[in-house]
């Protein structure tokens, strides 16, 4: 088929595609999901139940995104049950946390022992109506692609199976079945579909269908995508690699203990192990985005902005390596994009909030009060931190201002903080352009070969690209001055 004909087929598919959601009866999966949700709500201090929540989050994610029987070794649910057993030893019997954890553990045991596979059964029903060469199944994680293919073949419905990431380059066909909610897949899956029909198989909790306003908002003119059914509630999950070298896990755990920089303002952070024995602490908050190098084509590298929560092994981070402030975006935003003159307003609302939190008696009490005032997220520690500009939602900001006694200034402060936010975006863009100019002249062959490459930029001084080797689970309160500042934590490099 000529490339013009392929393009024409793509436009036709995008305009005719039917998108729908099939809800599957959740049974015990809902018990696990609800236990996780409930524990998130009742645990004010995640340090206490961090590991527990993490295990339940992984369990929930694997249950809602996999098309293989829950007894399958590839899912690793048995290991998570062992992890829950260990965590329960630290819980006090009779508490709600103990009760919920116990419920979730028993539900997981039932699911694994019965080998149930509700999503798989629903998929087989749908696949039966479509010719073999016209159907495709997409799963969230690439590491489950092979197991999913084997399961479908074994069940008499051989199909092409792809990961969510590789959908970008997949050819179109009649029917695409996505395992999990739409949020697990690129938005182009339904806004610029290459398939005549796209079906999302999911449990009826946890995710709403995405808004259909299009990339530029409701006035952009994109009218075609639609969902025939809708889900409920909202939350998100991240993915954890299934198999990681035990020696690097131990090294990371040790490095994390030995390098807990404290003092001054502290923020919740996690550690990334970098090539050549380096490590870095970075903030856990969802608003933390970091510049990375896309080195897939070393002759023509790209600079991309990634949410810190999605950074993992194989990514290349760009960090300041000299003695200047590690937050080079803030520095540039102040110096070149006019953010400096607005910082006093940023400091004023943070001070008011910090004083209100202090008056409330504790962070937990402040969070309860903020929820009562209408906030949907209450990341008070982050909001009062210098590293944050403002909450993501205006309603949360208004609640925080009301709580801090500066409600009358909420609108003007929000505008000023928005300007700072935009200055940071512009600064990030400027840095990206500067880096690309620099990287383009040399390529990133050294970075790919050795895992570390240094750069010197006129405005920003010394920077370096580092390959990420491992992301240490869990988080610590770390001094703000050490955030995003790489340091050598293992002479001679990390174990492999």
């Amino acid at each position, binding site marked *: 088929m000529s490339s*013009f004909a392929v*393009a024409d087929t793509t*436009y036709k598919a995008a305009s005719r595609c039917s998108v729908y959601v099939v809800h599957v009866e959740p049974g015990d999966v809902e018990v696990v999901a609800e236990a996780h949700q409930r524990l998130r709500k009742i645990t004010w201090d995640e340090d206490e139940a961090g590991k527990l929540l993490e295990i339940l989050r992984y369990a929930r994610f694997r249950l809602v995104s996999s098309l293989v029987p829950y007894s399958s070794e590839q899912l690793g649910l048995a290991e998570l049950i062992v992890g829950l057993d260990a965590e329960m030893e630290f819980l006090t019997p009779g508490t709600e946390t103990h009760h919920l954890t116990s419920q979730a553990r028993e539900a997981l045991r039932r699911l694994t022992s019965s080998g149930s596979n509700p999503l798989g059964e629903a998929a087989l029903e749908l696949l039966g109506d479509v010719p073999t060469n016209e159907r495709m199944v997409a799963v969230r994680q690439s590491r489950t692609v092979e197991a999913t293919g084997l399961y479908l073949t074994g069940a008499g419905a051989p199909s092409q199976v792809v990961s969510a990431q590789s959908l970008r380059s997949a050819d179109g066909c009649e029917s695409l079945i996505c395992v999990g909610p739409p949020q697990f897949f690129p938005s182009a899956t339904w806004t*610029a579909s290459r398939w005549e029909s796209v079906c999302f198989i999911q449990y009826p909790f946890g995710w709403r269908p995405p808004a259909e306003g299009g990339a530029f908002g409701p006035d952009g003119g*994109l009218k075609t995508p639609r969902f025939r059914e809708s889900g409920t509630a909202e939350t998100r999950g991240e993915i954890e690699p299934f198999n990681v070298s035990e020696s690097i896990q131990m090294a990371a755990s040790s490095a994390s203990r030995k390098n807990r920089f404290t003092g001054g303002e502290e923020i919740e952070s996690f550690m990334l192990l970098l090539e050549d024995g380096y490590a870095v602490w970075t903030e856990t908050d969802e608003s933390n985005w970091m510049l990375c190098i896309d080195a897939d084509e070393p002759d023509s590298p790209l600079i*991309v*902005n990634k949410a810190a929560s999605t950074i993992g092994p194989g990514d290349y981070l760009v960090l300041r390596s000299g003695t200047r402030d590690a937050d080079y975006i803030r520095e540039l935003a102040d110096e070149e994009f006019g953010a400096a003159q607005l910082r006093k307003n940023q400091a004023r609302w943070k001070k008011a909030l910090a004083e209100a939190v202090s008056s409330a008696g504790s962070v937990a009490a402040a969070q309860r009060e903020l929820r009562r005032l209408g906030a949907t997220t209450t990341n008070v520690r982050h909001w009062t931190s210098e590293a944050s500009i403002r909450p993501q939602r205006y309603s949360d900001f208004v609640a925080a201002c009301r709580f801090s006694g500066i409600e009358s200034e909420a609108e003007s402060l929000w505008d000023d903080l928005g300007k700072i936010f*935009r200055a940071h975006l*512009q600064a990030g863009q400027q840095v990206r352009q500067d880096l690309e100019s620099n990287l383009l002249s040399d390529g990133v062959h050294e970075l790919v070969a050795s895992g570390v490459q240094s750069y010197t930029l006129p405005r920003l001084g010394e920077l370096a690209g580092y390959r990420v080797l491992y992301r240490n689970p869990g988080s610590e309160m770390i001094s703000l001055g050490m955030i995003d500042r790489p340091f050598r934590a293992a002479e001679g490099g990390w174990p492999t």
Partner: protein
Amino acid sequence: MTATEPVLSTLIDGNSHQLPDWALWFQVVGDSLAQWDEDGLRSWTCVTVPTRSFAAALAAFGSVRFAANRGAEDSLAERLSTLTPGDAVAWLDTNGEMRSGRFEGVDDTYVHYRPRNHGGIGIATKRPLAMAQDFYPLEPGEEPFAGARCVADNERFVVSALGVDSKALLLRSSVDVVICGTATQLAEELESQDFCSGGASGRLMDVIRPKRLLPAGQRWRSLIVTGSSRPSDVSLTVDPSVVVFDGAQAFLRLSDSIPGKSNLVILDRWSARIEESVAMVRIARNQRWVEARPPSIDGLPPGVETFSWVEES
């Protein structure tokens, strides 16, 4: 001729097919952008599409077609009035040969122009204008060149697709449109797909004629700037009337370096950089827009989204 007139059809497996709506729409977009001309202002039109294939090429075709027709409207007398002695000019002699030299002045006796010969080409200096078919001044910095037959490849196709004499394309070079994107992909689209017009077949390359893809010495109508070009490579001596940024990478890297009078940004929804690009588009719009009307583009095809603004240039 109007932009919406389906002058092209696709030729697939030897059969002619009417141009689909989305392809016709991009042609209209290119035409509309080329028409838009407001003093001191610059327009931006951003579109998200299910696939970028052929979008930039067809928009460029619309821009080139508009520019070619606009050029044809200039009378010989108007063009003559812009010349001063010593200017480099190219003209067609009565045998269809393209010649060039330096303009000396007007001979009232014969009412003709006398180009002084350069480069040893046999040119009759007393030939009346009526004997020469047409002439154009060369671009600044462009030197007179050796003579050549002034016949386009696929001339019937070019004449029908553009609605003007093909010689207008070959007498002089111009930059009707700048396309920022991946050169190999654009080359493939321009050179591999057959189109039909006026009963003749040809390729978009025959009319868009990017300098980068032509043999040395040929006249061009457009420039291709690749996403990996350095800023110094993309500094242009002309202020392009239309610039097409084909893809997020081209937009993010080059939009500051070579903005045109009218700019088209084509973003593939499947691109890994779509979100970053959309964020930058929104920021640019919010910070720079002024109250003026962007080019009017109707008839949005399904699956395509637009976002436009006008800013001070």
